[in-house]
């Protein structure tokens, strides 16, 4: 049972972590998050399905276009639902991003339909069998992609000029502006990157789940819980929290039964936050007066 729980937990947990990385990126740079992140998950999967299944594009072409659509969507969210409200000093971006996500879900519902559809993949059809444990190749790919992207985000932030600018913008936006760093552009780019990460999550989960206009809602909520749990500002923390969340979820179902899954998982989240209010791997913010 342990092996099944590990496979299931790590696979789903890395998807949660991947989506949650997007929250981390935007929060670190702008202090805001995209609550329409779940819709970005859905957009990646739906566009990929429309191109690969609907128009019979090869996956190598469908995936980049779907991810491009997600990145553009991230830019739209930032421009319409975040920037104007931040400029006015209000927190209304919270509601605006939620509203924009609902809007996208409903537009997709009209265009794509309400029926869930399958996104077939050779990586999710013929499982590898070890003893009485089966695993789709995709379930191995998903955690690898999750960890690889977390590494990429880390390296990007610490080893590139863009990363340096981003960190400068995080530390002191005004000083960064004085140094001719276009902070507004950087924030927009992080929103695009966050939506892109969510889109990758959507495309990876689609073959083992399915594609539907409302598929992102639950993933978005769980990913936000993971982001808070991981400490919001710490990419590695968020990825580890995602894996932990997935494992707790799978273990609760395996040993206590499906009726206990949500009770145990969210109780664990609350308990963890009581013990570590800034998240398990987050930095406590010091306010100097």
């Amino acid at each position: 049972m342990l092996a099944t729980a590990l496979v299931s937990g790590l696979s789903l947990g890395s998807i949660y972590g991947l989506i949650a990385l997007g929250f981390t990126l935007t929060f670190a740079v702008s202090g805001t998050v995209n609550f329409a992140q779940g819709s970005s998950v859905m957009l990646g999967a739906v566009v990929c399905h429309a191109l690969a299944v609907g128009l019979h594009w090869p996956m190598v072409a469908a995936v980049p276009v779907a991810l491009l659509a997600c990145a553009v969507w991230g830019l739209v969210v930032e421009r319409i639902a975040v920037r104007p409200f931040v400029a006015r000093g209000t927190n209304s971006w919270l509601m605006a991003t939620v509203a924009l996500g609902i809007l996208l879900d409903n537009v997709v519902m009209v265009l794509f339909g309400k029926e869930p559809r399958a996104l077939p993949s050779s990586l999710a059809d013929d499982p590898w069998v070890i003893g009485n444990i089966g695993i789709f190749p995709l379930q191995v790919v998903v955690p690898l992609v999750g960890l690889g992207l977390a590494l990429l985000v880390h390296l990007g932030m610490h080893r590139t000029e863009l990363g340096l600018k981003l960190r400068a913008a995080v530390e002191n936006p005004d000083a960064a502006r004085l140094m001719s760093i276009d902070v507004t552009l950087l924030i927009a780019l992080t929103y695009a990157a966050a939506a892109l990460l969510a889109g990758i999550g959507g495309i990876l989960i689609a073959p083992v789940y399915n594609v539907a206009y409302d598929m992102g809602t639950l993933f978005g909520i769980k990913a936000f819980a993971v982001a808070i749990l991981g400490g919001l500002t710490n990419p590695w923390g968020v990825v580890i929290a995602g894996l932990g969340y997935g494992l707790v979820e799978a273990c609760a179902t395996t040993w206590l039964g499906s009726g206990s899954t949500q009770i145990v998982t969210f109780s664990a989240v609350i308990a963890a936050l009581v013990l570590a209010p800034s998240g398990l791997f987050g930095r406590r913010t010091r306010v100097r007066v």
Partner: protein
Amino acid sequence: MPTKFTRRQALVLPAGIALGSLAGRAAMAAEPVKIGLVAALSGASAKSGEGITRGLTIAIDEINAKGGVLGGRMLELVRRDDESNPVKGQTAARELIDKEGVAILFGGIDSPVSLAIVPVANAAQVPFMGVWAAATNITRNGANPNFIFRVSAVDVLVDRALMKYATTKFGAKTPGLMLVNNGWGESNLAGLTAAAEAAGIKLAGAEKFDDKDADMTPQLQRLRDAGADTVILVGNAAPGAQVIKSLQRSAWTVPIVSHWGISGGRFPELAGSWAGKVHFIQTYSFFGPQNDVGKQVLAALMKKYPDIKGPGDVTPPVGVANAYDAMQLTALAMAKAGSTEGAKLREGFLAIESYQGLIKNYTKPFTDANHDALNENDYVMVRYNGDQIEPVTG
């Protein structure tokens, strides 16, 4: 000054009044009888709503072609989409009763939606006809008088049939249950537990899953470790497909017997290559020798719907067949009642003596004690072959 009529006026006036009266009666006679349908017309179970619509439409076309009901009134179908949501279903039912003035409501695939409509229909004294949702307490709801009727399977009977099939076909001794986490799942948990006790076998366990669960391998592993030798599945198409994908992922080649919820959507597409492994229940199959009604209905379906080229294209057959027979029985009830008024129509259903239908020859289909027209003798076991539903042979 008193009005004086000429001789011609004196003749023409009564004739005019008589003609006007006749015209008025003709207008009244022409007033259609509205038939309400509240079902999943979109979402994961959209195919169920389409099947029910087709069954009702074929029956209504037939009845109208023969002159309608109650001396020439045509039947008119008014549909509302409940989106598999009990609140939306209840609201739609109220609207159809209060605003559209429907004579009867037909229901869809989702038991939770039907269960939400039951008190509304009973309070308004408008008959509700279930043609898919199988929860036992839809018809056995404790209301007196009870306005709820059904031409469909009943969980408590389906559960006995599924258990019997699992034991005879697959030699099951410790079946495990995979049940959707809602009222329908609860209804079947009670029914399957009782059926197992009656059959003298022990259940390996009962696991639940939610409609949006992405991975059911932990639940299946629990059943596997508990020694389940067959899985009995109760769920609709999308989550049912997730159960099958999780089984495939676990490489657990256990026999799977299922309730019919999986046939209400794109199950073969969503479940992938293991879809054909599932043996599930239906009340009718358009394959094999058909009675006269079967031949006539299949011909009408092929004529009206170009996508139907043969029996395999009538999907889901249960929705089409149940709805067709239920509509014909409703027309008979209206004839018996001589009215579309709810209380009289209810009595009309109870007064039906016999009807040669598509599914069977009904004899006293409804009585005070039994509002379910079908029983376990009316079930057939089928499986998917590609997109088509075929009877299990061998």
